[in-house]
Structure formats: C-alpha cells, structure tokens
C-alpha cells in the first residue's frame, strides 16, 4: 500500500517536472522568436540621478470620497465622458431629461387628477406632483446610475489606479446635471404663481437636499460594489425604483397617509422611515406649501423637523457605512470583472 502511494507520488513528481520542462521549452522558443523580433538599443550617455521628493507611501491609498473631491479635474472629465456617452447617437440629446419627466407628469396628472379626482383635495396639485417627480428623478438616476457605474468603466478599473468612488460620485453629478433643468422649471412656475418664501421653508429645502444627497450617495456606493460581484443587483434596483413613485406623497395628499396612522401605526412608521418620503415632504414645504396663503400645516406630519433631522443623521451614518464597505471590497474589483 505504502509503496503504491510512493509510486504514485513519484509519478506525479515526474509529470510535474515534465510539464515544467515543456513550459520552459515553449518559453525558450518564444524567447528566441522574440529576441529576433525585439530590437536592441544600447544605453548611451551617462546616467542621471533623479531626486524624488515624495514620501514612500502605499500605491493604493484608501482616500475614499474625499480623495475623489480633491481631484476636481479628473471628476469633471469623467462626468463629461458619461454625458457624452449617454447622448452619443441620440437625436434629442439633453432634451430627454425634459421629455421623460414631462410625459410622466402628464400621465400622472391625467390619471390621478382627472380620473381619480385627487386634484380636488390638493391646491396647486400640479406643483405638488411635480416637486415629487423632481426629487424621485434625482434619486432614481443617482441610484441606478451609481449601481452600474463600476461595470460601465470596467476598462479603466482593471488597468488604472484611481479612487474608485469617483464613478458613483460622477453618476450622482450626472443625475444632478439632468435634474437641474427640471428644478429651474419648478422654480419658474413657483415665481409665476407667486412664491411666499420664508426662512423656515428654505431651511426645509436644505434639509431635504442634504437627506437626499446622503441617502442616494450611500445607496449608489453600496450597490455599485455589490453589482461587481453579482450583476443581479442592477435589476433589483430598477425593480425597486418602479415602486418609488407610489411610495412618496406626490400623487396623493399626505393627509390620506396620516389618516391611517391610528389604525396601522407600523405601516405608517415604515412609510415615514423612507428618507425619500422625508425629502419629498421637505421639498414640498419649500416649493408647494409656499404658494398658498392658506395654512397647509395639516398636509405635513406634526413632527416634520424632528423626523427630518433624525433621518439626516441616519443617512449620514449609512453613507459612512457604505464607504467603509466599498473600501473593504474595492481591492477585489479588478479580479472579479
């Protein structure tokens, strides 16, 4: 038994040696062929001494999002690259960022307003709806764009060293670039109708923006990393985003949601825990609620500010966690693509 084992072992060793010899022969032949093909240029002149004033550091520092922001020129190039790629061979170009929300707005306005008669309960229903559409549009584009961003830049990720957070961050900036015109339309409508803007409304808008940016960035980072390992996640994200329009109070008044908080407290809390809901409410406070002279405080939750601040802290925490996760798995990206 023992001798058989030994025999098998030595056979394996011989096989191994044979394989290595063959490989060496192949390499030698290749070397010979290449040696003919590769011209030899001898060094000429004296060697200079080069003084490098940098420190001895890791070639792959974990700079994260902060390092990304420190390289505005590179970030700008990547954002413009992304935009150019999106509108390559497109007739309408940037106009698409008007067409799509405009159509969505039209459909919701007709179905929810005229058919389901929801516009009777809400003054300036069109702007109530449009504010929500703008917020959700920015959120959706950041999340889905960020999730795909690493795969889309596969060629760069595999060969060049850079803070890889730059791709989700660029996706967020692209989304902001697309949302900007819609925001302008929204502001313009408000100004025409008559905007009674107050400091607390501005504060609400800023809080809403902070929540939106933190939350969407956290999701973009986290899912961008997951999507490298399992591409299912980009489908999961687009499925979840289809429900987003119905999960925020834009087609229906918030009073209807609030009415159920007595009977279904848990459902109500789940609904309100969504940071996008918070952001939509806070933006409505700035745009929609400032249009009317009437007191619309019944249209908002009584604990709007406390909830908003808690949500912001939670979202900042999520962003920190997402960054930690990203930095942890980022080293494995090139080998998994």
């Amino acid at each position: 038994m023992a001798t058989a084992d030994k025999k098998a072992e030595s056979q394996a060793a011989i096989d191994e040696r044979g394989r290595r010899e063959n490989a060496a022969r192949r390499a030698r032949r290749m070397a010979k062929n290449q040696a003919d093909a590769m011209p030899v240029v001898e060094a000429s002149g004296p060697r200079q001494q080069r003084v490098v004033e940098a420190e001895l550091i890791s070639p792959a520092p974990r700079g994260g999002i902060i390092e990304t922001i420190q390289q505005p020129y590179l970030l700008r190039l990547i954002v413009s690259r992304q935009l150019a790629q999106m509108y390559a061979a497109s007739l309408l170009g940037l106009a698409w960022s008007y067409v799509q929300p405009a159509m969505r707005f039209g459909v919701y306005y007709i179905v929810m307003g005229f058919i389901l008669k929801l516009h009777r309960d809400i003054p300036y229903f069109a702007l109530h709806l449009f504010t929500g559409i703008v917020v959700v549009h920015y959120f959706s584009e950041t999340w889905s764009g960020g999730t795909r961003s690493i795969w889309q830049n596969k060629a760069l990720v595999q060969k060049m060293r850079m803070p890889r957070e730059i791709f989700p961050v660029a996706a967020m900036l692209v989304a902001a670039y697309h949302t900007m015109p819609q925001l302008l339309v929204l502001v313009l409508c408000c100004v025409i109708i008559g905007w009674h803007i107050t400091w607390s409304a501005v504060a609400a808008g800023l809080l809403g923006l902070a929540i939106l940016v933190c939350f969407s960035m956290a999701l973009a980072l986290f899912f961008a990393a997951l999507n490298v390992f399992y591409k299912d996640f980009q489908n999961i994200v687009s499925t979840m985003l289809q429900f987003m329009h119905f999960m925020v109070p834009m087609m229906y008044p918030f009073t209807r949601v609030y009415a159920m908080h007595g009977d279904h407290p848990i459902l109500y809390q789940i609904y309100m825990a969504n940071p996008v809901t918070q952001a939509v409410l806070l933006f409505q406070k700035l745009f929609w609620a400032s249009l009317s002279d009437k007191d619309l405080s019944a249209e908002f939750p009584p604990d709007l500010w406390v909830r908003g601040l808690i949500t912001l802290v939670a979202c900042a925490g999520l962003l920190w966690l997402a960054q930690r996760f990203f930095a942890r798995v980022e080293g494995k990206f090139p080998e998994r693509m």
Partner: protein
Amino acid sequence: MTISIQVENVTKEFTMQYHRTLKQMAVASLKRLPLQEKFLAVNDVSFNVEQGSSIGLMGLNGSGKSTLLKLINGVMRPDTGIIRTRGRIAGLIATGAGFHPQLTGRENLFLNGAILGMSEAETKRKFDEIVEFADIGKFLDTPVSHYSSGMYARLGFSIAVHVDADVFLADEVLAVGDRPFKKKCMAKMQEIRQQGTTIFYVSHATASVRAMCDRVLVLESGRLNFDGDVDEGIRYLQYDDADDDEENEMDSELGADV
C-alpha cells in the same frame, strides 16, 4: 540611494468562481464539485528597488508577473504584506492601457493623463509631443475601439512615457508593435532610464533585457525564486540553453499539442 519601491512579504490570492448562477451552484454542490478554488498568484514576495535602477521581470506565462505589476501600480491591493512606492507611477499593464473604448483617442489621452496625475495645462503642453510619438495621425478623433492593436498600444505607450513618472512599468507592451515602433520605444525607454526613472521591464527577449536592465527578478508560480544579476537570471531561466536544437524544437511542438 533612496528606495523607490518596497515590497515586503506580499501575497495575493485569487478566487476562481466556477459557478455563477444559483442553479449552477445548487447542481454543483449536489454533485459535490468544488464551488470555488483559490490559488496564490503572488506568494510571499519581498524585494526593494532603488530609485533609478531598471529591473527585468521574467518568468513563464502565468507566473504572476502582471499581478505583481498591478500590485505595484495600485490597481490591486495585496492580501497580506506591504507595498510602498515613491512618486508618480505610469506604465502599461498586460499589453495595453486603460482606455475607454467609446471615447476618441484625444479624449482618452486627456482622461488617461488626468488619472496618471497630469493637470490640464500639463497635458495640453505635452499634447503635440504625445500625438507625434504615437503617430496615429488622423485617427486621433476616432473612438479607440476602431483602432488596430498596434495603434492602441502606441497611444498607450506614448502617454505613459510622457507623463514624467518616477516609476515606469512596461509589461510586454511592445509585443504588438511593429519593428520601427519597437525600436523607437526601446530608445525612449533608454532615455527615461538615463533620466533616473525606475523601470520595470517584462520581456522574454533576453537580448533586450540584457541591454535594458541592471537586475533581474524571476517569478515561478508566484514565488520570487531569483533576484540578482542579469546574466545569471537568464541562465537560471535556461533561456540560453545550448541544447535548444532541432530535436528540442520538435519536442516542444509536440509538448504544445499534448
């Protein structure tokens, strides 16, 4: 002399995933097949490189040369061990630069320059020089996906060599170029070598390694088995064997087929 690259007990392990979908995984685990396998691409490698020396990195295919360069470049991180480098690193890994296929040569030039740490002004200043060296003419404003492999390599090499890097990595870059371009590249590399840039040169061509390098590292299945003089390294690899005659040629051809 100052240390340019420091590599200490560096190990990099790759996981090979055999089955990607849940269904395949379920079938494989029922059949008791391995779901994944790990292997060490770089195994406990340590060395130091002084600023200005040029290193020939040799070894058979699959011995971990490209992985080691990716670790030095910062594209990958080692699982264990420490890598430290000094200054700007440029170069080409695994025959080609990181270009975005849909972008034109010009856009890729700017993007690549920015990633390597060049400012907009610096790129503009060197633009003409880079384009002239790459010699891609009117294709500059064509997407790089339409480039021939030679043009692709030329542009990549030209950018990397003009970055004024402190460490230059050349990983079999010149395998696809034609002879005049190869000659131009070797001359350019000698030039940056004289300027005191640290060079990592991967090649199987012994004559060109002899001309270019001061020191040779030999990797074998991820291990650093030789570190030292150029001629000894080449002898260690047996690339210069005298018995490499007709008979062996036939053997190796058979070997390749078996």
